């Protein structure tokens, strides 16, 4: 990655800059520091995957970058603009034209067809009528939903809905895509399609992409993987984390859900995965127990 000298004022090379960003929820006794003094630069066109256990602050970080939360302290710059100085209306404009959001759940409007869901965000940005309709259909075709354009969300599978959400995120051709656990609610096969789609989208369109996930398949498309723990981005993978061989999610080594097979330890995210493993250990064991020390897994912040 190219590091641009801050003092030169060439900050436009960065899509996203975070300086000492802290977010604390609540006050006094209820205070929770979800993001703790984070310093982060993301290059234009870079794909960054943020991993970390549940509650580590991934969602909060995405919300901060997406101008949906105000930091307790610190500075956030998106596409060269300080969020702090922007009005509410400007923040809305930034969200609809420069950022595409993909959430854990598709979050489509239940009363609208997939095409209308995409059209709506175009409408919000001032593209209306036929132009919006045509662009929506084109986007849905790109995500493989040509045959589903007039279906309501309730008439589509979770994976299809998530693909509509991806089409919606791309609608206004934003420079930045922010995705929070986009595959967490999908079964592994559907999740795979979505991962492929995200990969294609990111690479083909040269978008800056930040994905929070503990889906290891997504990790593979990253230019850079960040490890978030207790709201801090850590320099290395922690040895304390393992992969659940059944669902391929990251789990902590301290979990009580552990099984031994051929003298090796395996760790699981849930009792369900553990049971599955026990039914047929051979088929899962080969998936490895990667513990983060693999080459290339060392990341810098």
């Amino acid at each position, binding site marked *: 990655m190219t590091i641009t000298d801050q003092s030169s004022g060439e900050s436009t090379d960065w899509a996203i800059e975070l300086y000492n960003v802290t977010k604390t929820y609540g006050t006094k006794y209820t205070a929770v520091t979800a993001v703790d003094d984070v310093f982060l630069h993301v290059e234009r066109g870079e794909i960054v995957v943020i991993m970390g256990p549940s509650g580590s602050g991934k*969602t909060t970080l*995405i*919300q901060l970058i*997406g101008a*949906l*939360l105000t930091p307790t302290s610190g500075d956030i710059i998106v596409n060269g603009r300080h969020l702090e100085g922007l009005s*509410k*209306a400007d923040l*809305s*404009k*930034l*969200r*609809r*034209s420069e*950022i595409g*959001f993909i*959430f*854990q*759940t598709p*979050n*489509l*409007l*239940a*009363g*609208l067809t997939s095409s*209308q869901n995409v*059209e*709506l*965000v175009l*409408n*919000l*940005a001032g593209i*209306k*009528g036929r132009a*919006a309709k045509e662009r929506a259909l084109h986007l849905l075709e790109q995500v493989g939903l040509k045959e589903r354009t007039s279906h309501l969300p309730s008439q589509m599978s979770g994976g299809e809905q998530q693909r509509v959400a991806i089409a*919606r995120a791309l609608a*206004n051709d934003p420079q930045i895509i922010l995705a*929070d656990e986009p595959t967490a*609610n999908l079964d592994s096969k559907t999740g795979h399609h979505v991962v492929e789609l995200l990969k294609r989208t990111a690479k083909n369109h040269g978008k800056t992409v930040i994905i929070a996930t503990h889906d290891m398949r997504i990790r593979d498309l990253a230019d850079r993987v960040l490890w978030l723990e207790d709201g801090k981005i850590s320099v290395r993978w922690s040895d304390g984390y393992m992969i659940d061989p059944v669902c391929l999610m990251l789990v902590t080594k301290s979990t009580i859900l552990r099984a031994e097979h051929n003298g090796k330890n395996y760790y699981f995210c849930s009792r369900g995965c553990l049971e599955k493993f026990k039914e047929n250990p051979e088929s899962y064991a080969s998936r490895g127990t990667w513990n983060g020390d693999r080459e290339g897994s060392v990341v810098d912040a």
Partner: protein
Amino acid sequence: MFEMVDVALRNLAHAKSKVIVSVGGVVLSVFLILTMVGLNQAFSTMMDDMITGAGSDLWVTSKGSSGSFHSPSLLPMSIQDNLTQVDGVREAVPLIRTPLSTKIHDEKVLLYINGYDIETGLGGPWSVIAGKSEVNDGEIIIDKALAQKQNLEVGGNLTFSGKDFQIVGISDKTNLMIAYMVFITFDDAKALILEGVTNYFLVTIETGYTLQQVVDNIETALPDVSASTSDETAKAYKDEILGGFVPIFYLLSAIGLLVGIQVIGVLLYSLTMDKAKEYGILKAVGATNLQVYRVVLEQAIIVSLLGFAAGAAVIPPLISVLQVFVPEFIVSITPDMIFWVSILGILTGVVASILPARKIAAIDPALVFKEV
């Protein structure tokens, strides 16, 4: 607006039963408003008819009396000759108008007796819908609502003050709600009030004189009487009698309007709560508060217009049906009332949409990141 995906309409389509119940509520509110405004209108028309229907140019009353129920007028018959001789007066005929409480079929009924001059016909019925339009001694023309209510017909009899009257005609637009107008000859009516007096003189003027000239001439010649044009008399009537009711009409109309606003407001509030997550999504993907508020405003206007339109369509026929059973229920609804009611409908929607506006502003877009 129409080039956009219509979120408002689709949200409403998704909540049909709520919308139907609310539209029903709005219809009730429109019913209240239209009834009140219609009653006011009907009263006002009735007062106009009572005066202008008599057919004279001027009304002469005792000084200081408007001639209404509240301040009856009494004039000696002896001034009839003096009146006729006033410059510009063509005819001056007496009219007795007096309330009379009687019993018909054992039910207490208040009649408003008109004893009029049958030679000129001044003060006689102005809208006869059955039978003859004038009476002779011993005959009576009665109000339509009275006829309906008491099952009276042309050819039947009506007895009061110890005298039998034969019903010869039915008159419309003479239902005073608190009393029914009936018409008899002046001579028959004389027996009902003091000897040698009348309540009014009805005056027609000669051509070549203005109303005001003749009014002045009469008041100069006869200092103890007042003369005023039919229009002025009608206005004085309305001010005196309706004056007390109008604030009540307005109050009840305003309550009706508030009920409508409340009903739509509650609907919008509940729809907004149902859809809070979706509004959060809209905000997250870049909709401004104003853009989201517009969705709610559109919903409000759609529902209130639906309600007011249904009200305007259903209520006039409903009132006609009600009038068959309750003839005193005189409500007159005019096309311009319907117009104003639809304007009110839009305003109601706008006002009602203010109720959930704060809720919308408070919806946190960050909630879309929460798991289901």
